[in-house]
């Protein structure tokens, strides 16, 4: 979520409600917020009912901070490692060993980019490297067929952002609900 739209109190309200229903909510924030506010920001998210945080630019833009920061965050709630095909094997091993949560794996190096890749290769790589950990895939998922294929290859779930945001931007709530419903159906069938 773009930083300019981030309203912790507002989001916290929803996180609180969802937590009371047994649904975990995870915040996605760029490092700049943690850099400026420190762990107080992370603690406020925890107090608002979030179960963990994803910091997608930590390993790319601030790698020297990760060894100290990840264990600190883990004392408060879950740090969700975000990896993608450009993440070196050694980094995946070391960051995985510092955390115990599920893993967010981007199929593309950046959101909204349509680069060619072999889904089977991509999924077998990460599932092999973090053996036994729950892995959810995101970045570039556009169709229900992709969702079916991803779940069939051993992923625990999918994260869909750009597509649904576009529906919202267009005011197309029907398409939003329809896609959401289809994903849920695929997910239930996969189980």
């Amino acid at each position, binding site marked *: 979520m773009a930083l300019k739209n981030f309203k912790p109190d507002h989001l916290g309200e929803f996180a609180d409600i969802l937590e009371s229903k047994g649904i975990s909510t995870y915040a996605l924030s760029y490092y700049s917020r943690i850099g400026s506010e420190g762990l107080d920001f992370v603690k406020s998210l925890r107090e608002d009912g979030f179960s963990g945080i994803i910091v997608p630019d930590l*390993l*790319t*833009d601030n*790698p020297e901070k990760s060894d100290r920061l990840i264990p600190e965050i883990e004392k408060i709630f879950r740090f969700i490692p975000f990896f*993608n*095909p*450009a*993440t*070196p*094997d*050694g*980094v995946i091993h070391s960051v995985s060993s510092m955390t115990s949560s599920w893993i967010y794996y981007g199929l*593309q*190096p*950046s959101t*909204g*980019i*349509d*680069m*060619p*890749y*072999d889904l089977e*290769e*991509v999924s077998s*790589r990460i599932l092999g490297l973090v053996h036994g950990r729950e892995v959810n895939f995101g970045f570039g998922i556009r169709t229900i067929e992709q969702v079916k294929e991803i779940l069939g290859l051993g992923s625990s779930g999918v994260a869909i952002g750009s597509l649904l945001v576009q529906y919202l931007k267009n005011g197309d709530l029907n398409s939003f609900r329809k896609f959401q419903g289809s994903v849920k159906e695929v997910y239930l069938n996969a189980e």
Partner: protein
Amino acid sequence: MPSMRKIMLSSQDTAIIPNEWYNVVPDLPRQLPPPVDRDENKSSIQLLNQILPKAILKQEFTFQKYTRIPEEVQEIYAQIGRPTPLFRAHGLEKALDYHGKILVKYEGATITGSHKINTAIPQAFYARDEGSSGVVTETGAGQWGTATTVAASLAGITSKVFMVRVSFNQKPLRKQIMELYGGEIVPSPSPETEFGRRVLSQNPDHPGTLGIAISEAVEYALEHGLKYMLGSVFNSVLTHQSVIGLESEKQLEILGETPDVLIGCVGGGSNFGGFVFPLMKKFKDARIYASTASEVPKFSKGEYKYDYVDTAKILPSIKMYTLGSDYVPEKIYAGGLRYHGAAPSISMLVNSGRINSSDMPEDKVIDALKVFARSQGIVAAPESGHAIATAIEYARENREQKETILVNVSGHGLLDMSIFQR
């Protein structure tokens, strides 16, 4: 007289040619920052989808450490002179009174006289296989343009090369060779593209830069539905160039040598990365030196930050050491080193301290080329002269150490003789 077995001036053993390329990205100590778009209204990253073959794009972003080299490309590698020689430079050692060993990997032995052909071949063949009728690219010193025109001819497709104007004027032989190989050569900035016309309107005598030529080639490829050939900087190019390091690894094994020091020159970084990365994986303690031109001091005076690959800002922004995408370097003797940035993987390792950098001024490079020519009989390219100069400086400063220095000489300089008249 030293044993010939220990010299290994050349090898016709094609078994030395690797059948897989090595991609360093999964083995880097940190994650490479991804390319980014800095213009909200257009996606320069999506642009890559239009101008690059899909196979190249896949290799650009792959996590696979090894990629199978297509058999057709392996055969062409043998045809163009691979494996290139790795030899002990006894003459240079004697000239320097060096007590250790100096080994040279010589990419000047390919048919085009430089390492550039190593990536031109697969890129042209992938373009042809995906139905493209031709390829477009830019060239600085002319080595990349030469490699592109040969590769396109071997693949049976057309080629067009935007050549930095200063090199176009200084190196008529390069132009003739590229035309002989079937390429169409245009001095850049040119009136053939909107960007070129804009640059010329501001300065009709603009000497050109690699960044401007890249911008023109990309624009031309887009407008004419052709594929663009990447000369350096990008991961996929460094991956193709890994044949240099992988061959060296096998040749060192045959010679029974372990290098203590690895030295190469850096323009965009493709020969350096291709040479160093496979060896760095095996020889973890080797000290590594990236040699650049003092006139283009990207590592010592540049910043490690996101910057555009090209002057027109058509291609994505990548995190690298850069002097600024609008930097216009001096009209130096080594056109291949006039690029404002360096490959992200190399930049990261310079930034982390794993790779050392060394700026070499023109006088030292010319001297080094003369010493190398007179002691080894090889006229090296001015770009490669930087690596040789760094190796000579290292050998002189560490004469008694008895270390083994391996230097990559990325090309010959037989078409660059004018630099000795300056």
